[in-house]
């Protein structure tokens, strides 16, 4: 197991390296530059700024410098908010995004699983139809529409929740709900479908023949078998959600990583774009390893190689 994890981490580092390299060179293909947007700078000023940040050197040299710094753990300084290092910006954003993300995932997992189990248990009945309706809606309607509808309804029309920022627990309610909406619906669908499949399996009939209660059959014998697809889905989702959803962060004006990524991209803040990309790649790699380990824990037939 430990050997497996170490090997996967090593492979993961290679993935991160590849992502870093590709992103680095792709960035040069994007028109514009970090200093163009600033108020009418003169040619000399831009040239001087470019020289100061090493942007005047050939690409390969820039790449070499960046990678050398990266190996030292130095992500560089933001070109836009020059008083901050990239690391500081990512960390301060991550704390905010991850806090929202963890809450959202918890809600999605709890409600998605309960909903999915109930729908499968009451297959074809009213409750099932209702839950299918909800989850189809949740999966089909893009999150920015749900978000804006919620915002208009709860904040503007009813004024129950504050609109902007994260200053009190009440501020969390809407962004977390919006963030959890899609994954809740998706997990509900997954659990429902795989529960329906599992409930028809022979070993469930065996469990019934033993005289076990419905509760035990569902939660001990069925759910664990139905969990694998959920975990497959949860790995990358967790990564993305921890990194922050830029739509929701923009709409609710939340200073998370998503927001930082938007301003970095629009402003061609190369070091910040690179930093966030590497960070995301790293988290996705970690989550995938976590998923494989969870697989093994849930289903003993799976071999980690």
């Amino acid at each position, binding site marked *: 197991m430990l050997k497996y994890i170490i090997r996967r981490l090593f492979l993961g580092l290679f993935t991160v390296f590849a992502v870093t390299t590709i992103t680095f060179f792709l960035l040069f293909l994007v028109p514009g530059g970090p200093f163009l947007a600033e108020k009418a700078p003169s040619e000399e000023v831009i040239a001087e700024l470019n020289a100061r940040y090493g942007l005047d050197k050939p690409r390969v040299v820039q790449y070499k410098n960046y990678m050398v710094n990266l190996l030292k753990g130095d992500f560089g300084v933001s070109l836009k908010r020059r008083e901050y290092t990239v690391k500081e910006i990512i960390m301060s954003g991550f704390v905010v995004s991850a806090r929202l993300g963890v809450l959202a995932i918890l809600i999605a997992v709890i409600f998605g699983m309960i909903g999915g189990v109930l729908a499968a248990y009451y297959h074809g009945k009213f409750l099932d139809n209702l839950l299918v309706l909800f989850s189809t809606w949740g999966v089909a309607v893009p999150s920015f529409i749900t978000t804006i509808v919620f915002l208009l309804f709860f904040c503007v029309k009813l004024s129950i929740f504050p609109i902007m920022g994260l200053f009190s627990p009440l501020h969390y309610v809407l962004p977390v709900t919006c963030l959890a909406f899609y994954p809740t619906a998706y997990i509900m669908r997954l659990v429902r479908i795989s529960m329906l499949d599992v409930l028809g399996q022979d*070993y469930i009939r065996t469990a019934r*023949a033993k*005289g076990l209660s419905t509760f035990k059959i569902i939660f001990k014998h069925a759910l664990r*078998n139905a969990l694998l697809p959920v975990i497959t889905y949860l790995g990358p989702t967790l990564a993305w959600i921890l990194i922050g959803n830029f739509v929701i962060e923009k709409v609710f004006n939340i200073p998370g990583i998503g927001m930082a990524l938007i301003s970095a991209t629009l402003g061609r803040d190369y070091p910040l774009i690179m930093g966030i990309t590497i960070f995301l790649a790293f988290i996705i790699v970690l989550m995938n390893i976590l998923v494989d380990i969870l697989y093994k824990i849930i*289903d*003993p037939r799976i071999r980690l190689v």
Partner: protein
Amino acid sequence: MANDLLEIKNLRLSFFVPSGEVKAINNVSVSLKRGDVLGLVGESGSGKSVLSHAVMGFVSPPGKILGGSIDFNGLRINEMTEKEKRIIRGTEISMIFQDPMTSLNPVYPIGTQICEVLMLKNKMNRKTAWYKAEQLIKSVGIIDPQRRLTQYPHEFSGGMRQRIMIAIALACEPRLVIADEPTTALDVTTQAQILELMLEMKEKKGMAIIITTHNLGIVANMCDRIAVMYGGTIVEYGTVMDIFYESRHEYTKGLINSIPKLTAKKEEKLVPIEGTPLNMLVPPLGCPFAPRCKLCMAICLKKRPPYTQIASVHYSACWLNQKEEFERDAINV
């Protein structure tokens, strides 16, 4: 017969599917004494599984019991609530299924799956249950039980898994074990071993057994009674001797002829029963076997043959048994 462990009377059970009513069990009566072995024999689709599941109380939509009764040890199974049935499942009646590869939960060690029923039904604590489980799987012929209990189903062969299923079924010493084609999914050598084990366990524990199979040959030496099923009805019933040597039903005779014999000479061929199994959506008016019967008579197509008592416990539902009666014109054709 008040002393019978199980008495099924005039049972009718149908599945209501979009294309109509599948009459899976059509007026079946059969009983079983304590400690006896009943073989339910018939080809695929004759209703063996449906009947044996009904005894467990496993009837769920689109299936519905339309009439008759199932009495087990003084309890009317078909009128019990799900909760009441749950209490007797595992303790009074237990079941072994056809496919041992899929009948155990893949994500739990087999020890957990055996102990579960002991802890729930016999109120044992984990330690006692584990100890009992060890003895159980030892008694069904699994060596190194201590280590084996911690292993998962995928680490066992099909035959081993069926042994484990037997251990689970016997854990609480039930009065009745229902084995629905327990050896069909196994290879021939393993089949014999499993049947031998079941017989051995029966000698030890004295439970009654219902065993279903489409292969008359394999159950012959373990059954006290055999009920031959065709098209959702029992067409012939009797002792092994009655069925094998004194059969009075054309379908049974066909079944016997289709058993491979060890002593067969090269030129002797297996004789299959011609025709296709019954479409139970539109069961025939008369004898269910009539469309495939070589000796079919006019009356067979019109009227369902009643049971004729051939010997003390030997019954057959075939018009040929009443030939003299219609030759004497006693029966209106």
